[in-house]
């Protein structure tokens, strides 16, 4: 090897292990990126909401003459959803020990999730009866947009939960799949208190 100012010849000793390394399982990594996008999606909606709220004429929010949101009842519902998230974390840890043990906390999580969505459905019917609609002004529009988008995510999450539950019963669920589901559901659960704080309070 003749040096004279040239870069020295790079001779890397070949990596003796020579195997593919998965830093994070595929399903979990894909879900992580997806959840990142979703966080930006909700960040866009919330910041639009905050800008509109801050530029209300007179600075009075919620605008006079609009129905009030059921703060206490929704607080109860928030607790239900948070418990659903806790149950999912328990299910994940049980799954790591033995998949069959995950069934019970998994079902608890799903039932609490369904409770949350149904409860919110009744709340919406009540609000619509009181005249809060998407076209009744920015208050109603943002309420149904943000809360509705979250509800849509919860419903899709429950659908995935049902599909994964079938896989779990068949013993066909792998750890990556369970991790991906847990991450998505935790995202849906933890997003809610932020929305509750911003939209309801």
């Amino acid at each position, binding site marked *: 090897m003749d040096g004279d100012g040239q870069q020295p010849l790079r001779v890397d000793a*070949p990596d003796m292990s020579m195997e593919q390394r998965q830093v994070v399982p595929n399903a979990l990594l*894909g879900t992580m990126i997806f959840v990142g996008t979703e966080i930006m999606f909700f960040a866009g909606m919330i910041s639009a909401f905050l800008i509109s709220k801050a530029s209300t004429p007179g600075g009075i929010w919620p605008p006079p003459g609009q129905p009030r949101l059921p703060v206490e009842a929704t607080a109860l519902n928030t607790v239900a959803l948070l418990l659903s998230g806790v149950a999912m974390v328990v299910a994940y840890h049980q799954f790591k020990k033995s998949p069959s043990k995950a069934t019970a906390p998994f079902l608890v999580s799903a039932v609490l999730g369904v409770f949350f969505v149904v409860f919110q459905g009744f709340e919406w019917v009540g609000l619509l009866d009181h005249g809060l609609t998407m076209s009744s002004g920015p208050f109603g529009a943002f309420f149904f947009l943000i809360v509705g988008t979250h509800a849509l995510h919860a419903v899709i999450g429950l659908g995935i939960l049902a599909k994964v539950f079938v896989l779990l019963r068949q013993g066909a669920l792998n750890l990556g799949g369970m991790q991906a589901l847990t991450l998505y559901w935790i995202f849906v659960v933890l997003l809610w208190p932020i929305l509750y704080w911003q939209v309801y309070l």
Partner: protein
Amino acid sequence: MSATAHDDHHHGPTFAEIWLLQSTDHKMIGKQYMFIGMFMGLIGAYFAYAFRMQLAFPGVNVPGFGTVSPLEYNALVTNHGTIMIFWVAMPVLIAAFGNFLIPLMIGCDDMVFPRLNRLSVQIFLASAIVLIASFFVHNGGFGGAWTAYPPLSAKAEYNLTPLGSTLWLLAVVLEFAAFLIGGINFITTAMNARAPGMKALDVPMVVWMICIASLLFMASVGPLVAGAVMLLFDQVLGTGFFDPDKGGGPVLWQHLFWFFGHPEVYVVLLPACGITAEIITVFSRKKLFAYKTILYTVIGTGVLSFFVWAHHQFISGIDPRMANVFTITTVLISIPIAEMMFLFIATLYGGSIRFTTPMLWALSFIAEFLIGGVTGIFLGSSGADIYFHDTYFVLAHFHYTFFPIAIIGTFAALTFWFPKMFGRMMNDTLGKIHFWGTIIPFNFIFIPLFYLGAAGQHRRIYNFNHYPQLATPDLQALRVLATVSLLVMLSFQAVFIYNMLYSMFRGKKAPNNPWNANTLEWSCPSPPPHGNFGDELPNCYRGPYEYSVPGRDEDFWPQNLPN
């Protein structure tokens, strides 16, 4: 991954796999993206032809189109922009070459989520069909400019295209969904499926660039999708998110749009830079100058690109103090990009340069993009922008960025990887005729438009004869020059189409490694079979740019050779 799925696939691709998008093979999906993108590119070019004819010869009966009405003119310019960015630049540069190159370059048999990949191209085709369908509904396609500012885009009584604008919005959202799925696939594959021994800094630059571009896209697209849903509700449900009469704010849309819109420039720029890096190293037989610096520069550019968006809104009534901040960030972002261009030039310095067709494209990318970058400094300065805003100066500026990115980048990549994609060589002489026949007229189209913009010619005007100051003969002569140059440039594309189709079926058979390049895709057969590398996937022993290493007989050193 899909090792077992490959076993029953040793026959050639079936009819359904090719034409009904039923294939899960990343190479097939990449080609499908490319051909759909090129077809959309022809539509976009046809639109440009129609409205440029109207601008140069107002009221003329355009051959192949007919007379352009004001409503049609609006739809033409809007959809030209939309198509060229969302249905040409993104699918061809990121999706087509990302799909084709990433598994081959990192040495694996397919994407980690092959079925999601197939879903991605299917959604993309659906989005293209929805967009094309919007041209044929009542009153035609959407005409509120590709930026879709409300209230023009939100209210049918203003834009006169009640269904066209809704379909346009749906098509854009569908297209984003396709790229979201594709981007997740790219990043997961590049992180988890690299060949044994391939460390992060052994990854070819174009793979890095496509992955960083995908990350930028996914981090920026959320707020725009939120805005698009709100705009859709404004259109069809009568909400007032962007309607001042109902308590909304039209500038809000501009923030949501440009928060995505400016990173989007870098989303398409980075893959083109990566393609340029691959080509100039191969054809100057030199190591890429400052690999790590380029990489960190790109990451820095990506972060900074999230803090420049409001330079599109200097005259939208934003606070002047905010304009100052965005002027500074905008001028700052030209530093890393200029640095990257210098590093490319430093790569060329002292190399043994071979002027093949792909190399000409890569070099012209650097030269032409430079003009686009330099003219951007004027627009990023809030004071100068008050005059230049919405003039043809802006238009010429971003065509000097997007044309090198989308068109030059695509031609560079396609002529370079054509042997690997189709197993045959392209004709180099025809390639060079096409190159000069594209590059020279390109400059004759857009340099006059800089002058017109500096003379105060406003964008999105149907007929300049209605404005006495702009209807002078010398300005009209520049418009005619631009249009005639466009006709010349478009006619030279026939050379390319002939060359591509002829070479695909009749060209000289390509060897595995026609350019004596190092990266892993050149170690598998041309074209690669299903599963890419046969029974044994390659190992990677060194970085991708070991050219002209002293002490070796050959001037290249492929990544998969132990020594």
